[in-house]
């Protein structure tokens, strides 16, 4: 599987979520991968170690997780589409550099195949315990975009989306995939055949004298011209003005931070991606994402057979959180059952979205066992 050419197979093929991520990244034009071995994401690196050199791209296994994250930021500044993949402990180590990419507005994609935590936790077992870390893992206010696939085919599609959004918004984008989706082997038909062009936001019509690497008053950030193209600008993790040079001016700092947050907020329609199932007549709404959503769908079918009007709200985009979409979908429902493989991280966001108008019933499972449809069904019956 690892040696498979990206275009040669449009499907159906059998593939894991981790492999699908690698294939999608190649399709998106990946030029540079830096990683570090960690369960359960390692197959992404393994697959790319065979694919990238064949395609003329660069694969490097770095000395540690921090180096891998730093290297993909450097590679992106030099013009490549870049990716790294990791899991819990590695995701923790990468946080400082993720914040650097947020502030310096360097596009890159980070895959976190979620395993049980905290600490070494349960390396081979699934969890969804990193969703809040994805949002607030690095220090300071910063924008975050993160997606979560429920199955292998979607891992492929959302990986493409990660690259697209990273380029257009010039920000690190995360794919949060639980271990189940990372490791399950499924029949996949590559949804994108032949040419697929991810937006590239790297060229400007401006002269080097007029070019500014940063802009704080537009809908979208200016293109990031790669190093070596004759635009000798400066990039710094210090707060900076439009030229990229450090500025300790407090008004500039205020403007820069508000811009960073607003560039995601102002482009929500590009970023937000939700699935609604059977919500037209539902009195009970299931809230679920990732592999848990598949169990939720199973439970929903069983409940419908019993005549219970159950629907599903499933965010594919975890961050920014789809508050408005969720609030609209929850109009008229009697209760929301929030299903997570953690102890209620996104459930707090669900509560925020419905502003106390709908009761939110928790269904949390941790310890490494996947959520089962029958368990959810029991909760549905009890509501």
């Amino acid at each position, binding site marked *: 599987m690892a040696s498979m050419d990206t275009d040669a197979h449009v499907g159906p093929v059998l593939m894991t979520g981790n492999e699908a991520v690698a294939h999608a990244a190649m399709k998106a034009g990946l030029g540079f991968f*830096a990683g570090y071995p960690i369960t359960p994401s390692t197959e992404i690196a393994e697959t790319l170690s065979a694919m990238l050199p*064949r395609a003329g791209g660069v694969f490097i296994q770095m000395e540690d997780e*921090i180096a891998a994250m730093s*290297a993909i*930021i450097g590679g992106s500044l*030099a013009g490549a589409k*870049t990716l790294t993949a990791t899991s819990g402990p590695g995701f923790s180590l990468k946080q400082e550099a993720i914040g650097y990419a947020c502030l310096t507005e360097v596009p890159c994609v980070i895959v976190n195949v979620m395993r049980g935590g905290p600490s070494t936790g349960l390396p081979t077992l699934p969890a969804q315990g990193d969703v809040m870390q994805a949002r607030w893992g690095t220090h300071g206010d910063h924008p975050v975009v993160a997606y979560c696939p429920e199955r292998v085919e979607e891992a492929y599609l959302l990986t493409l989306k990660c690259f697209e959004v990273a380029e257009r918004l010039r920000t690190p984008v995360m794919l949060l995939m639980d271990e189940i989706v990372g490791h399950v082997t499924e029949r996949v038909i590559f949804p994108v055949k032949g040419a697929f062009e991810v937006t590239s936001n790297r060229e400007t019509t401006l002269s080097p004298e007029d070019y500014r690497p940063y802009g704080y008053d537009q809908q979208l950030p200016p293109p990031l011209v790669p*190093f*070596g193209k004759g635009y000798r600008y400066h990039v710094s993790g*210090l707060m900076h003005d439009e030229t990229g040079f450090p500025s300790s001016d407090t008004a500039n700092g205020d403007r820069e931070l508000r811009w960073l947050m607003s560039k995601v907020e102002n482009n929500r329609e590009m970023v937000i991606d939700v699935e609604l199932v059977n919500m037209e007549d539902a009195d009970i709404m299931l809230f679920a994402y990732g592999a848990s959503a598949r169990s939720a769908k199973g439970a929903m079918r069983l409940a419908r057979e019993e005549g219970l009007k159950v629907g599903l709200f499933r965010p594919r985009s975890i961050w920014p959180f789809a508050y408005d979409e969720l609030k609209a979908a929850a109009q008229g429902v009697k209760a929301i059952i929030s299903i997570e493989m953690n102890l209620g991280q996104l459930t707090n966001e669900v509560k925020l979205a419905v502003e106390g108008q709908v009761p939110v019933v928790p269904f949390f499972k941790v310890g490494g066992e996947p959520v089962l449809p029958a368990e959810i069904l029991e909760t549905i019956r009890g509501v």
Partner: protein
Amino acid sequence: MRAVDYDKYLRAAHVPHIWCPGCGHGIALKTMVRAVDTMGWEKNDVCMVSGIGCSGRAPGYVDFNSLHTTHGRAIAFASGIKLANNNLNVVVVTGDGDGVAIGGNHLIHAARRNLDITVLLWNNTIYGMTGGQVSPTTPLGCKATTAPFGNYEHSFNIAELVAAAGGNFIARGTVHNPIQLEKLMVQAFSKRGFSFVEVMSPCPTAFGRRNKLKSAPAMMQDLKDRSIPIAKALKMEPDDLDGKIVTGVLLDRDKQEYTDIYRNLVANLRGA
């Protein structure tokens, strides 16, 4: 000294620099600019990368592609840049805290890979930017804000570390002898593979004042007094070299370079 048009390389809007009066870093920067000029590198083809600390500010002052990264990670960022665009001449400026404390792992592994970048480590034997804390190169017994009774740890010999890790070219110079330092930098820049120059640079503010070297001239004199050329040092007993600064080319070899190996692999795979 050969005349160099410094204005061509300095970013007029961003100088004067923030370094203290008497700091060695200004000489280190000037020497580096001279070496780049000697190389005849196009400014567009030069990428300068730094981490955090007093040395970290250097790239902002020079008109190259410049990147001021996180603490300790400059070499990792630079590795990504070099691998994504092999045409760039990538130069890392780091310090002793940045380069061998928090970032030591990246130095070791870039040297092991023999990646074609140059690391200039401006060693002032102290954490200057944060006000004078003990660093991995602070000599035994010297005072720092976190070693008020004198440093009780042994210090690093960074050149030996880089040599053991596999660096291709290793040199040491001081800002007291910029003519030699420039030559060493030119040799490092010319070398294919991982090249490393340790630049001994005085920090009168955070190190000197606490260690009986109260003025910048006193620190310069100290650098001069302790410097020994490598040719002379080779004839001396190790004990007699205690506290000395051995200068010159310490190692020069020709291991196969990382991107050359990788490029061959890619060519073979694609040709096959």
